[in-house]
C-alpha cells in the first residue's frame, strides 16, 4: 500500500479499521478527538459502529458489553478520561476480555493541560484499577509504529484475552508522518472466541463475569491471570536499541516520542565524541526486565539516565531492573513541556560529569 502522510490520531483509527476493529466507543477529549472525528466518517463506510458515549465511564462499559460479542472493539481517550475507565478496565481484565484502549496522554494531574506528557506510565503499567491484573502496554515512537502497534494490540488482545493499552504522548496523536498500512491484512492464527456471548443455541448458557464469591474460585481466576501474565512476560517483550555499542559510556532509557529526541541527542553527542546508547522499551508491560539488566551490566556503561516527559515514573522500573549496578540519573520535564535535544544532551553531560 502506498505511503500516506497522516496524523497519528487518524493513523491509529485507520489501523484499527484495517484489522477489522470497526466498533468504536469514545467521548471527546483533547488531544485525541480526531480519532472519533475520523471514525465518525470512516466507520459508516465499512459498516462499523461508533457511539459517542455520554462519558468515559460509559465508554469503558460499552466496550465491556461490546467485547462480550467477540468482535474487535476499542476506544481512545486522554488522561482524565482514562482515569474514569479504571473500574471498567479492572472488570474487563478480570473477565478476560480482549479490548484495546489508547491513551494519548496530556499533562496532569487533574485537568492539567492539553499538551503532550508521559505522566500516566504508572497508571497504565502498574494498574490504575483495583485488583491483581496487568495491562499489556505498548508505546510507539512514530506514527508508523503507532499503526504497527495498534495492529499488534488487537492481535495480543485476542491472543491473550486481555485488555491492551497503547500509550502515546499528545504529540504522537497530533503530528503527521508518512505511514504504510498492510496491503491486505491477515490475522495470525488466534484462538477461537468460543467464550463470546451470542445466545445459548445448541449449547449451555455462557456467562462473562468477574465475581467469584468463593475465594478459592476467585483465587483461581487470579492465578489464571497470573499465568497469562507469565506467558506474556516470556513472549511479548519488545524493545529497541539505538547506537548501543561497547564504546557507550552512558545508557539512556526513554520510550515513545521521548526516545526520538534522545536519538537526536545521541547523534549530536556522537559528533562531540561522547558515546551514548539508547534503550527504548516498546512493551512497557511486559517490561524488558532481563534485557535492561543485561545492557546495564556491560562493562563500558558507567552510568544510566532515564528521560521522561514526567517527574519520573518509568525510572522506577529501570531502578528495579538495573539492581543498583550502575548509578541511575533522571531527567524529566512535565506538564506539556517536552525535553528538547539540547536538554537531553545537557543532562547526559551532567550525568557524566562533563559539565556541572
Amino acid at each position: 500500500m502506498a505511503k500516506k502522510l497522516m496524523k497519528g490520531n487518524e493513523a491509529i483509527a485507520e489501523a484499527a479499521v484495517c484489522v477489522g476493529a470497526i466498533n468504536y466507543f469514545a467521548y471527546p477529549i483533547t488531544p485525541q478527538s480526531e480519532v472519533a472525528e475520523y471514525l465518525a466518517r470512516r466507520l459508516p463506510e465499512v459498516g462499523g459502529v461508533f457511539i459517542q458515549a455520554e462519558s468515559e465511564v460509559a465508554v469503558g462499559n460499552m466496550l465491556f458489553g461490546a467485547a462480550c460479542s467477540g468482535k474487535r472493539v476499542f476506544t481512545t481517550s486522554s488522561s482524565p478520561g482514562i482515569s474514569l475507565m479504571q473500574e471498567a478496565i479492572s472488570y474487563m481484565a478480570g473477565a478476560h476480555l480482549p479490548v484495546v484502549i489508547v491513551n494519548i496522554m496530556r499533562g496532569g494531574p487533574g485537568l492539567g493541560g492539553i499538551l503532550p506528557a508521559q505522566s500516566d506510565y504508572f497508571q497504565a503499567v502498574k494498574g490504575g484499577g483495583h485488583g491483581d491484573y496487568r495491562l499489556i502496554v505498548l508505546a510507539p515512537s512514530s506514527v508508523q509504529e503507532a499503526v504497527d502497534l495498534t495492529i499488534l494490540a488487537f492481535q495480543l488482545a485476542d491472543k491473550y484475552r486481555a485488555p491492551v493499552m497503547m500509550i502515546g504522548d499528545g504529540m504522537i496523536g497530533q503530528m503527521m508522518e508518512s505511514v504504510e498500512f498492510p496491503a491486505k491484512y491477515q490475522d495470525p492464527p488466534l484462538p477461537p472466541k468460543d467464550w463470546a456471548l451470542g445466545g445459548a443455541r445448541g449449547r449451555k448458557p455462557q456467562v462473562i463475569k468477574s465475581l467469584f464469591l468463593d475465594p478459592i474460585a476467585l483465587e483461581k481466576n487470579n492465578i489464571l491471570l497470573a499465568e497469562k501474565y507469565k506467558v506474556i512476560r516470556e513472549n511479548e517483550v519488545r524493545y529497541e536499541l539505538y547506537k548501543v555499542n561497547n564504546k557507550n559510556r552512558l545508557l539512556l532509557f526513554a520510550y515513545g516520542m521521548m526516545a526520538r529526541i534522545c536519538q537526536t541527542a545521541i547523534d549530536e553527542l556522537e559528533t562531540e565524541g561522547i558515546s551514548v546508547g539508547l534503550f527504548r522499551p516498546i512493551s512497557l508491560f511486559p517490561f524488558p526486565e532481563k534485557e535492561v539488566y543485561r545492557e546495564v551490566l556491560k562493562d563500558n556503561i558507567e552510568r544510566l539516565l532515564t528521560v521522561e516527559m514526567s517527574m519520573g515514573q518509568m525510572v522506577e522500573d529501570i531502578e528495579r531492573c538495573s539492581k543498583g549496578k550502575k548509578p541511575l540519573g533522571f531527567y524529566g520535564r512535565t506538564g506539556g513541556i517536552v525535553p528538547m535535544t539540547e536538554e537531553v544532551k545537557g543532562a547526559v553531560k551532567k550525568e557524566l560529569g562533563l559539565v556541572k
Partner: protein
Amino acid sequence: MAKDELTILGRPESLSDNITHYCPGCTHGIIHRLVAESIDELGVRERTVGVAPVGCAVLIYNYLNVDFMESPHGRAPALATGFKRLRPDMIVFTYQGDGDLASIGMSEIIHAANRGEKFTVVFVNNAIYGMTGGQMAPTTMPHQKTTTSPMGRDVSLSGYPIRVAELLSSLRTPAYIARTAVHTPIHVIDAKQKIKRAFAYQIQGKCFSLVEVLSTCPTNWGIAPDAATRWVTDNMMPYYPLGTFKTPEEEIA
C-alpha cells in the same frame, strides 16, 4: 402426577434448576420467573443475552438459562448498549435494582433511554439496597428507616424518592415505560403482561423498553414476607403509581 394430567403452570424452561440465594419471600424470585416465562413464551431463549447488575440479583445468571454478562455496579445499560449495537439480532435485557439503576447508574440509564437503545430493562425497585445490608436508596420512602437513615429518610436532606418511570418518560425519544408490582397475584399478572410487552417491543425492533417493578426486601425492611407485601400496598403504591407511562406509538410532541 397422573398420565393424563396437564401442567398449567410450572417452572419455565428459561428458569434453571438452581435454588436461588434470595431470602424467603423476596419477590426478586417472582420477577425472575416472569422474565423467564416471557422469554419462553416469546420463543427467544436461544438468542437472549442478559446483563446482571450488582445487587442481590448479581447471581441471576445462575437462575436464568440464557447467556449473561455481569456489569459493574450501575453500568448495565452501557454494557447492553455496547453488545446490542454489535448484535442487533440478539434480545438483550438488563435486570437492575434501584441502587444500581437509580443511584450509581442514573447517567447510563438516562442516556441509553434517550438514545433509544433497543434493549429491555427490568427495574426492581425495593426502596433499599438489599445486597449491602439495607442502606438508603434514591427510591427509599420518606421517613423509611435504613442503616444509613437510622432516623428515617429526611426529605429535607435527601430529597424525595426518585420516580424512575416518570423521569424516563419525560424524555422525548420513543420508548415503552411502565410501572407494575408483584406483591399480590393480581399485580403479578399485570407485571407479567408488562414485562412480556417490553420484550415484544424489542423483538419488533421498536424501541427502548423499561418496566419498573415494585418489589419487597423483607430482610432489610425487617418484616415478614407477608407484611412486606402489605408495606408495598400501604407505602409504596401511593407514591409510585402503577401504569403505562409511555408507549412508542404515542405521537412525538
